[in-house]
């Protein structure tokens, strides 16, 4: 093991409070990243103090907003804009919002969870009373 790393699972609603607590304890923010899981995203917020690595983690559903920590750590806005552009996750109240222009990708949010599309509604096949006769008539007209 190169170094011991502390992984702390949290609730999304506790994020800002816990990050503020780490800031007041003298931790620096070293990175934020998202990971695409099968049907949701995993958010990782990593901090360091005196070479001790600590990571906060929670998951969010597609379309679920995440609060910004930009007011606590001034460098968070770049990470948050990156996550927004690559994953399509909405970060609320970013201190600097690039509105999706930080990265220019051909496919919008390339890391986004692939939600299966709902089945297409197929219109019922018309019955004999509803126009089957006219369809037959059309066919006869065509061939005739």
């Amino acid at each position: 093991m190169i170094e011991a790393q502390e992984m702390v699972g949290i609730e999304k609603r506790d994020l800002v409070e816990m990050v503020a607590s780490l800031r007041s304890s003298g931790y620096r923010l070293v990175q934020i990243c998202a990971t695409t899981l099968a049907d949701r995203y995993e958010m990782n917020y990593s901090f360091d103090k005196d070479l001790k690595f600590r990571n906060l983690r929670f998951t969010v559903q597609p379309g679920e907003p995440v609060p910004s920590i930009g007011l606590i750590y001034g460098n968070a806005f770049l990470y948050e804009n990156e996550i927004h552009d690559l994953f399509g996750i909405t970060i609320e109240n970013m201190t600097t919002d690039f509105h999706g222009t930080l990265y220019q990708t051909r496919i919008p949010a390339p890391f986004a969870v692939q939600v299966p599309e709902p089945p297409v509604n197929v219109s019922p096949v018309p019955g004999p009373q509803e126009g089957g006769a006219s369809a037959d008539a059309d066919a006869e007209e065509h061939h005739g």
Partner: protein
Amino acid sequence: MAKKNIIPFGPQHPVLPEPIHFDLVTEDETVVDAIPVIGYVHRGLEKLVEKKDFNEYTYVAERICGICGFMHGFGYCQTVEEVMAVEVPERAVYLRTIWAELSRINSHLLWLGVAADAMGFESLFMHSFRLRESVLDIIEATAGGRMVFGCVKIGGVRRDIEGSVLRGIIVKLQDLEPHIREITNVFLEDYSTRHRMEGVGVISKEDAYYMGMVGPMIRASGIPSDIRQIGYAAYKHIQFEPLTAQTGDCYGRCVVRVGEIFESIDLVRQLVEKTPEGPIEVKVKGTPSGEFFGRIEQPRGEVIYYVKGNGTKFLERFRVRVPTFANLPGMIHALKGSQIADVPVIILSIDPCISCTER
């Protein structure tokens, strides 16, 4: 109050080696705000991990950056090895560390040249690049490549360095040292270079820390933060101290990088003397399952590799947080309040690598 103007800076500019754009909001000659725009060279290399075998991805990782590509390959392999609990042979660990320190010397000499160019000191630029060429020759003789080494793999290294060649590296670096000192004395003592760097782009100790700055940027503000201290690779076997400066300005960053060139020469000497005999690779079986945040110290500072494996040959997630990405917010902070003529020197003082940043 003076009228505010927006001056576009980049993405093509004589002092920018790679494309990045800034909207500089100015009042007269003073920059009051700077808004960065990146995204010109985003290649989606993190996404590519979903389609590349984790062994093959080493080649991709080495191409994240054109200057410290070896460091990316090294960091990626080390992180995957941590996930897979692979014990790399000691000789391979030492060879990796030697190449890493040679990369640092190469990168810092390149920065000195580019910084001299930004200051309009053309002859100093040429001298810096001439000396850098000698380091590239050493790298080529040992790794086979000048920029992309291609010699690191999961489980060890692909090439060995013979004992006589290892000792030859020390001799060549010793011969090179006085020549490097000659040009670095110009950077640190000359009136015109000091005039361009002293008191320019000052970042306080607290700002550097809480802005998440890394590498020579944070050390120039007086914080001895260096990930090599955690003792990865062969750093646990050698003696070194993080070099710092107290001024927090462009001159302080230059002092730190110059000091690190000579420190790296000393580290290579220590590593060569201690390099053990033995195998250079171990056969790796299985596929990665688990996760780890790997950290190494590149020439530009701390870099983080997040690897998450799901037991298949394709990684579930690979994420790189490079030093320039971490240093951008601090650089924007340093630009505010600076004079427009100092902007190129401040931008170059973070040693920006945009290809790394966008991946």
